[in-house]
């Protein structure tokens, strides 16, 4: 896997992000919508790592480790936030199911005035 360039990874990330965005719009099951959000987060993680691997660092920053580690740090924090988001979101889905006995996304009009 040495012959790849940056555009290949960016293309894969773009395709996955677009599929996730389509899924968020099209599907009506809120659990599948959550999965599509995870798909979009993973596409963004892939582009972060690709940029972290391929972007050149300047000579003045090359000896400082944090100059080329920021992409990986971003991915670490995205993973942490995604874990917290999934826990809270699935808790909300459970609460709504207990209240309404259905989780159709089109029937969730509790906040409508």
């Amino acid at each position, binding site marked *: *896997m*040495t*012959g*790849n*360039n*940056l*555009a*290949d*990874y*960016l*293309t*894969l990330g773009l*395709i*996955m992000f*677009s*599929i996730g*965005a*389509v*899924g968020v*719009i*099209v*599907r*009506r*099951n809120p*659990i*599948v919508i959550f999965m*599509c959000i995870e*798909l979009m987060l*993973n596409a963004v*993680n*892939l582009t972060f*790592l*690709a940029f*972290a*691997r*391929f972007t*050149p660092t300047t000579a003045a920053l090359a000896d400082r*480790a*944090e100059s*080329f*580690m920021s992409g*990986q*740090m971003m*991915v*670490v*924090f995205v*993973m*942490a*936030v*995604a*874990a*917290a988001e*999934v*826990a809270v979101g*699935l808790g*909300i*889905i*459970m609460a709504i*199911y207990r209240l309404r006995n259905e*989780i159709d996304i089109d029937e969730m009009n509790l906040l409508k005035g």
Partner: protein
Amino acid sequence: MTVFMVLSTIAILAALGVVLFSSPVRSALCLVFNFFTLAFIYFGLKTELLGITQIVVYTGAIMVLFLFVIMLLNLGGPQTWKERFEFRTVLGFGFGFALAAVIASQVFANFQYFDKPQAPDSFGSPQALGRVLFTHYVWPFEIASILLLIGIVGSIMLAKRKL
């Protein structure tokens, strides 16, 4: 190159399966496939620690949580979820293609000459990542731990019937 092509083809097909399967269990299993192939692509980018973290956190924790909720709410059968074909479906696919076309036309021309990896090969090792995480990024690390604590408390609050 061929390894990357095979892995990315599997990843794209699994991502399509997440959207197109009507049963949420099949969508979840497709998402597991997608996360695994992404982890191998991360290995190819020489970020080994994040590839292992991807397998452990996403397929080990998050997808188990998804499957647990699907089984708990008894949503496994496809007959419970008839996805209606309606105007929104066409609009969604059109929007997706438009998004991909706009980003592809604006972004890729600037990056086609970046064909050589610039970061050192050991930049994804646990030593390098841990050293930066506990020195230069120690405050975001602590804030992330507080966020996870709030997430635990909030999900228990939401899931309990009576406090």
